[in-house]
């Protein structure tokens, strides 16, 4: 049915009464220039139910008046998405993403502040259900235990070697520290559960789900407009912020002072509850990034060289240690 149902860009844009003059492919987005302006056409692999949820999220953001979002435009029939056999498309106005700003702003600061505003506008108190909290904590702990077990086994294996590869040697050097951080993550998780059960309430917010620099467009004044809400979920704010912080930690040099600054900035607009702060720290401290590197190293067809792997591992260990210092700074304030 390709000829009949697999829609070309022209057939998709017809549903918006737009006739492209120029189409440029930029990743998964097509920049479409027309008589009526420039648009971004996103091609996704969302399922119908995911697309329905995505549109529900976008309309909710519109209803609550959250302005820091690139809107999704309806087509001439009133649909916010266009489906063909395999893909779902949606159209947005084209927002130029500025790297230099007229005002002296830090893009990370803007992102943190706007996420806080998003969380604050969508905050919802959940009915207390001890079972549900226990269950989600157990699920996460189980997953972590499994990951730890896999890595422990691997480390046992490499310890049998007579000679270590540079990567193996680096891993063995830092392994006790990595284990310690995993333990810290578990402790923070237990503290979260204990405090949440004491408090007998929890809250959810609309989480963007994949926060990172490239999922926002900055105008010339440094205001960020979020896009790619395809993975948005109702969840604890700790999840979204931890994801954003992890992205910051990996994408630029930072230290615990800056980390603390970002957290303060977030809490200026949307203060974490004590238990949420523990959950946030628990997400951050678990060394999943390092575990993923080990997985990659063990893969038969890995693309990175030994040297690259060692350098990356060293960097991640450095980040892990910074996170530990960041955690100490945050909880020093509390004590």
């Amino acid at each position, binding site marked *: 049915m390709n000829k009949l*149902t697999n829609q070309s860009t022209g057939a998709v844009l*017809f549903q918006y009464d737009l006739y492209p003059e120029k189409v440029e492919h930029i990743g998964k987005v097509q920049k479409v220039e027309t008589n009526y302006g420039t648009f971004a056409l996103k091609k996704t692999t969302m399922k119908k139910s995911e697309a329905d949820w995505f549109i529900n999220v976008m309309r909710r953001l519109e209803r609550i008046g959250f302005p820091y979002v690139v809107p999704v435009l309806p087509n*001439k029939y009133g649909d916010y998405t266009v489906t063909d056999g395999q893909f779902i498309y949606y159209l947005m106005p084209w927002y130029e993403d500025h790297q230099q700003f007229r005002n002296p702003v830090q893009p990370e600061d803007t992102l943190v502040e706007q996420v806080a505003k998003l969380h604050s506008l969508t905050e919802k108190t959940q009915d207390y259900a001890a079972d549900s909290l226990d269950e989600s904590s157990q699920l996460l702990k189980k997953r972590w235990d499994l990951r730890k077990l896999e890595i422990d086994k691997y480390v046992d294996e490499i310890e049998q070697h007579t000679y270590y590869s540079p990567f193996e040697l680096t891993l063995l050097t830092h392994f006790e520290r990595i284990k310690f951080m995993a333990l810290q993550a578990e402790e923070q998780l237990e503290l979260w559960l204990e405090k949440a059960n004491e408090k007998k309430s929890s809250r959810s917010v609309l989480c963007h789900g994949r926060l990172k620099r490239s999922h926002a467009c900055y105008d010339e004044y440094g205001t960020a407009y979020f896009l790619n809400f395809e993975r948005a979920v109702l969840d604890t704010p700790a999840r979204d912020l931890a994801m954003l912080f992890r992205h910051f930690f990996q994408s630029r040099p930072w230290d615990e002072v800056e980390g603390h600054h970002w957290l303060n900035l977030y809490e200026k607009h949307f203060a974490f509850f004590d238990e949420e702060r523990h959950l946030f720290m628990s997400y951050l401290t678990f060394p999943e990034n390092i575990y993923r590197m080990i997985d990659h190293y063990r893969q038969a067809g890995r693309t990175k060289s030994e040297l690259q792997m060692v350098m990356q591992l060293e960097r991640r260990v450095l980040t892990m240690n910074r996170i530990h210092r960041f955690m100490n700074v945050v909880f020093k304030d509390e004590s």
Partner: protein
Amino acid sequence: MIELHHIESHFPFQQVEWLEKNKFINTERGIKALHLWTDEEQMKHHMQWRDRFAEHAGVLTDRMIQTVNGDKAIPIEAGWMTLHDVVDSSFPVSDYPEEMGQFLGNYVLVPIEETDPPVNQSKERISAFIDVPFPSSTPRFRVLEKMRKEARQREKKADGLARSVEVDGQMQRVLAIESFSQAKEIDGQLFWENKGTELKPSVDVLCSCLRKWVENYGEDRLDLVFNGLNESFPLKNENGLLLLSRLVYPTEYVEFASWFNKTRNDDEVEKRYVALSNQWDVSKKIVAKFVHWLEEAKEKVHYEQIN
């Protein structure tokens, strides 16, 4: 009477002018067709039909263009008006027999809520005209009488086939297809233009399309149409028997006899007879091809089971 400013104030167009008063407008976003509705229920049914059809079949179609307020119709003096796209270029239907077959299967299976009860085929096919002999003075009397007797046999055969189907001949109604010229093309893709408002039983729509296919493009690639149809409307089960029963049923004869018994116009018999004779042949070819296709499909299934 519809005023242009009424359209301008409801739809997101800057420039609007009549191309044909009350029928077509030219806008900066292309030509649009107006459709006027006097029956609100019928209009709502068509809105639902087009939306569901686009979603289910996954093709472009002339759905109702929304107003700036998000409505699909605007009230006018005589009822309601809806606005639709107009596409000129034709889709090369004959180049895509398999795809068109699949499209037709999807078309007749559009999930839609019916306000009227579904059609019971066995009741509908009882036609008194088959039992009424032609007066001996009728032109082509002998051949018409021969046809009448054969039509009676076809009717019995069709009834027998329909009775063997568990679904009891019940089927939903869909918008009738007038011709394959409703298939238009946009940037290489099919755009289906809906025509008329008549709803017909789904299998009758399929039969009529198969006849149109043979009349327009010949019978050579009918197998491919069946293959495609089978993808979306599985023919190896009751659907196939139901379709066969409607193909065997002497629709063309019943239409002819019905016309003749109403008008008794001997002068036009010759012209009508030629059309009937052609349609009779077309039906025969389709039935033969379809029976052959069903037998081959059964053999294939049998072979697959053995292996």
